[in-house]
């Protein structure tokens, strides 16, 4: 989370409007889902990786790593699609082994389905990664506000995002304090300490919320967290790039 948050602030296209980035990401996701071809998914992944590194200035390794983590999940998920288990050999299987009474096998059709699923999902995931790694959450919340999402939802997101960091900070300080008094010297002590830490953290969060309430009321809080809309820069290149992405995806569908 810290890594994503850090790059969301430290990239060259942070100040491009979140609406546009969201639009591009959703469009790519939609195209990947609708034009169900491995080539489309792969081209989309390539584009997103390229935009993230060459345009947004993220290290290629970072984008690759996030993608790899998702890829592993995907691969595990589609394993069941590619490989079939059964008490009898699968009909039409290109290979099958038996382990005791259980037959393991896969057919060309099932492997193709799995491949299509992986590339499709990977293309969509890459699009979402580009959005997440180049857009601070504050900008996304700002976008929701402009789209007139319910105020309660927006306020909750604002406060939660802010206090995730302070509560994580409390957590790590308390953990260090416990650890320095040998709170985690054994599994048994560790469990007891972790329990104490958890309950203390709840109380801490509750008291913090009380103090926040007081501080907000001092500044005239009247039931909703009113803040200024954020200003973004206009970048016409963004439209050209987006059109290029979409055109190449369509081309990939037709040509391959």
């Amino acid at each position, binding site marked *: 989370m810290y890594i994503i948050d850090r790059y969301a602030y430290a990239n060259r296209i942070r100040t491009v409007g979140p609406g546009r980035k969201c639009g591009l990401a959703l469009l790519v996701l939609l195209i990947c889902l609708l034009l169900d071809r491995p080539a489309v998914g792969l081209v989309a992944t390539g584009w997103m990786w390229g935009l993230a590194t060459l345009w947004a200035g993220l290290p290629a390794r970072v984008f690759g790593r996030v993608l790899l983590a998702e890829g592993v999940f995907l691969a595990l998920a589609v394993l069941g699609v590619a490989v079939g288990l059964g008490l009898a050999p699968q009909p039409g299987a290109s290979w099958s082994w038996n382990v005791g009474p259980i037959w393991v096998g896969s057919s060309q059709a099932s492997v193709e389905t799995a491949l299509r699923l992986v590339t499709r999902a990977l293309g969509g995931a890459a699009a979402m990664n580009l959005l997440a790694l180049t857009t601070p959450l504050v900008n996304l919340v700002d976008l929701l506000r402009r789209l007139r999402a319910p105020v309660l939802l927006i306020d909750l997101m604002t406060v939660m995002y802010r206090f995730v960091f*302070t509560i994580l900070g409390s957590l790590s300080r308390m953990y260090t304090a416990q650890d320095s008094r040998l709170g985690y010297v054994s599994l048994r002590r560790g469990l007891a300490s972790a329990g104490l830490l958890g309950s203390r953290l709840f109380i801490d969060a509750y008291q913090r919320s009380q103090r926040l309430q*007081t*501080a907000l009321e001092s500044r005239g809080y009247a039931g909703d967290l009113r803040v200024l809309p954020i200003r973004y820069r206009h970048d016409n290149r963004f439209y050209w790039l987006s059109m290029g992405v979409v055109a190449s995806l369509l081309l990939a569908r037709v040509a391959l």
Partner: protein
Amino acid sequence: MMPILELDNLHYRYPGHGAPALRGATLSLPTGARVALLARNGCGKSTLLPHCNGILRPDSGIVRFEGRRLAYDRRSLRELRRRVGIVFQNPDDQLFSASVAQDISFGPLNLGLGERETRRLVQAAAEMCEITELLERPTHALGGGQKTRVALAGVLAMDPVVVIADEVTTSLDPWMRRQVLAIFQRLVAEGRTVVVATHDVEIAHYWADLVVVMNEGRIVAADGSDCIFADEALMAFVGLRDPWRLPPVGGRE
């Protein structure tokens, strides 16, 4: 000079607590004064301050702002909180937005001001607190001194005439403390009243022109720093010490 804020014989007991936190606190703050509020921990200081902007309402006693008795209806409270700003001890309890600029804009927008006016106030407050380069930064990436100044800017953006700072200098290094005191100095130069609740005897001694000493829910003294620190019985009573009077070398206190 007419006092800007008066607390008259305030009593307050937290619901569900046995001992009262305030037992007849009386204090008068002159307009444009530099006030240091000295108190040991648990003396009722953190109960006294929220009475100044109507967050807490005394069980008995009167709060007057600009000579008028405080009314606790919604409109009066809104007006009061615009004019009396409190900066709380821990900036992490006050900063609710992950965007510095958005956090500072909260107060002005609550006053019903428009976007253009709010942007101007945010910019002015940021310049006053020397944090213009932090406006685009995420709140959680700031250091302690930076957060303190952002919290201060969030209060100053509402253009208050009384600024109350609860121990904001306590966790700052001497350099940063000087920066914050310089901001307070500018506020006083503009005719605002600044109240600093602190344990820092030096701030009370060198900066304040009115030192208020609190003990056990009462104001036990309010005077110029020379008089306060000359009163050895008072100093001993509240457990504070004149920063000049060191114990003799090798001797006992």
